[in-house]
């Protein structure tokens, strides 16, 4: 069997239904990169957990076939944290949108980063709400006109990378869905990283936000240089401020810190779900009440 057939065969393991996204949707690039990354990492679909948010991004639940939980809008991160605590041996990946992660569930992002929960959060950033047919996302540019902001958006955009960096994320990266090879590497690095990983992926919505289409990003994104010091938080913060004219892609920051479950002595030997719960001895707990 040559390498190609083997890949094709494994690939089918993650293949669900054919996507319902609009032709040209930036999600295709992320979908494809995810499947390639999972295969290259030799993940098994039943021995992992993918937690989906709600939106065009979350709809990938039917196109990417792995053990998954299609969560509530904004709540994919806490769901994933719960899965990871219950079974820290499973790779846990979150696939969510900019509205999910930076709007509805913004609070969860901050706290999951603080806890350095070992999950990989892949955010589809297209500056617009596609599934609800075109309102501004939290990442939309100031002045952006949309169905919900016909006079132009008053707020300035959130800064996802700066948010994650300042709240303790140990892996912060940015990708572009048209650069599949680069994005695949980022996803693999994120999954391999032990700790909280945020990968913000530019993913044009050709239907509802053509102003921020492929050309917009192609003209602006640049890859971080080979000698870029990704361990330098101050440098990473500088890079995170490049939001409009020149936008960096690549691993912006990476550091090592023990993960949340490392601090739990209950999980030293087994995953929580592997413990026998059928016969706990209550006698040792009731003495203090007598």
């Amino acid at each position, binding site marked *: 069997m040559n390498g190609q057939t083997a890949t094709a065969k494994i690939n089918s393991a993650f293949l669900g239904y054919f996507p319902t996204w609009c032709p040209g949707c930036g999600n295709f690039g992320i979908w494809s990169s995810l499947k390639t990354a999972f295969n290259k990492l030799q993940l098994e*679909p039943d021995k992992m957990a993918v937690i989906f948010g709600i939106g065009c991004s979350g709809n990938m639940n039917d196109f990417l076939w792995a053990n998954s939980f299609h969560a509530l809008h904004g709540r994919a991160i806490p769901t994933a*944290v719960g899965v990871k605590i219950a*079974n820290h041996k499973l790779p846990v990946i979150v696939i969510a949108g900019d509205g999910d992660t930076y709007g509805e569930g913004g609070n969860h992002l901050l706290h999951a980063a603080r806890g350095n929960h070992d999950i990989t959060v892949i955010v589809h950033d297209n500056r617009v709400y596609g599934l609800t047919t075109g309102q501004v996302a939290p990442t939309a540019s100031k002045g952006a006109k949309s169905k919900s902001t016909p006079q132009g958006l008053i707020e300035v955009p959130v800064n996802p990378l700066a948010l994650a960096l300042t709240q303790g994320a140990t892996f912060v990266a940015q990708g572009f869905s048209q650069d599949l090879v680069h994005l695949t590497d980022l996803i693999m690095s994120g999954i391999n990283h032990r700790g909280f990983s945020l990968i913000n992926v530019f993913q044009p919505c050709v239907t509802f936000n053509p102003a921020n289409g492929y050309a917009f990003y192609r003209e602006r994104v640049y890859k971080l240089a080979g000698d870029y010091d990704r361990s330098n938080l101050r440098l990473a913060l500088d890079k995170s401020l490049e939001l409009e004219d020149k936008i960096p892609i690549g691993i912006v920051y990476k550091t090592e810190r023990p993960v949340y479950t490392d601090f739990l002595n209950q999980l030293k030997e087994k995953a929580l779900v592997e413990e026998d719960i059928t016969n*706990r001895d209550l006698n040792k707990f*009731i003495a203090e009440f007598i």
Partner: protein
Amino acid sequence: MTTGLFLGKIATRSGYHAFEYSEYPSLIRGGHNVIEVRISDEEVHSQGQGVDLLLCLNKETADLHGHEVREGGVIVFDNEKTDESKLMKPDRNIHYVHIPFSRILRENSLPMVMLNNIALGVLMHLIGADMEILNTLIAETFARKGEEIITKNREAATLGMNEAKKNFKIDILHKLEKKSVISPKLYITGNEVIGLGAIRAGCQFYCAYPMTPSSAILHYLASKAEKAGIVVKHAEDEISVINMALGASWAGARSMVATSGGGFALMVEAVSLSGMTETPIVIVMGQRPGPATGMPTWTEQGDLHFVIRSGHGEFPKIVLAPGDVGEAYKLTVEAFNLADRYQTPVLIMADKYLQEGHQSVEKFEIQSRFDRDRIDRGKLLSQEELLKITSYKRYLITDDGISSRALPGMKQSLHQANSYEHGEDGHTTEDAGERVKQVDKRNRKEATYLSNDFRLPEVFGAKEPPLTVVSWGSMKGPILQAMKESGGSFNYVHFSRLWPLDFGKLKEFLGRFGKFLLIENNSTGQLGQLLTMATGIEFPQKLLKYSGRPVYPHEIMVKIKELL
């Protein structure tokens, strides 16, 4: 607070029953805090009226509660803190015991924290209790702080004891003499016993955001987490709390959360998620007076309809409401089994009154239960069972509405839990036929519950009395106490399983009784409304209390007298 807890424990260790009720404002320091401890040879079900001994550690206690002391009772006070002339009522037969607490502290250069011990020493003399029990309690409480601290606390108690001995040789109170035969009792709060039940039930993940009156479950389980093998997580908000718990539960960990009305309001979207994804979860809903922030440290039963109807869309949920600590233990263990069996949310409704007060319960009552308790994980597949299934379907249509669960990580477990409507394999669907099949499947779980696990309410008291009291949850205590004190002029129908209800069986059951009195700790009679909806039976006679205080036995007796 410690003085009250110690007094209760001294009583139970001397062979008596005890019940504690506390009132305190939503402040950290200051305000008026009061602990009421009732002690009896027989079981005590509630707080009550009339005080035999009032221990005033500050001025407010004397001012606010002096009048509650019974004829022949005792008031202990410090004249530096209390206006003696105002306190003493010459027309009443009350023993006024002046103990110079402030001076004792000063003269012995003792810190304020020692006041509790001095007061306990005084109490030991006045009620004739065994000082050795107090000394043992002090040693147990401060075991980790070392001999020196234990000795200091004991010395302070002795100072109080000696001061009382020196001045008061009164013999007016019911004495708390140690009984010759003592059956061991637990003196425990609703919160602690729910924690104990959760440990026994194999709870593996407990997640919460602090909120009165449920915070102490978090404190208790956090302190036992490692020993019990539970992960306890204080998450950033209640939305995160329940979504984390559902994630953990989907991965296979038995999971519980607890909160109060406001926090539960934030959780409600995920209650619906539990229903849709068929992910088991146990939710403790500790009620306090609302709406909004309401009266955080007081008690009410105002959330029955809210809880029963919580969550958008139609899906089954199970709602339980324990009436005392014994029931709270039993129903907590059962809640985990029901959640796994029906793969749907199970709610335990309690309130400040049940959760924060200590009650004595026979050790054997809890012990015999936990020796019998079994963990039933319902249709959770083992790896071996899963491997025998050729094409696993998470939401397989079944007669009882319950489908087998596989866990992520198991070989051939490939599936998806989906918050969208889904087909049998978990994929999203908008197909009319599949939608109807899945709705019907989920709803069938309710029918399965009604035929397998529904229980009619428990009836306490006489067989054919002229009046039947109907109530639920924590009001069981005051009602049973009133029954005992009034000599049984009524019986009591106690609802501890509030949803789903078998309307037909209930109608027949309630039809056997004559005149009803509905008692609820809320302003609208929510159980009454529910029963009327279910059976057509109306409850024109009501005793509803919604002042933030529990119903008192004497209020029940007055109402019953009016009706008979």
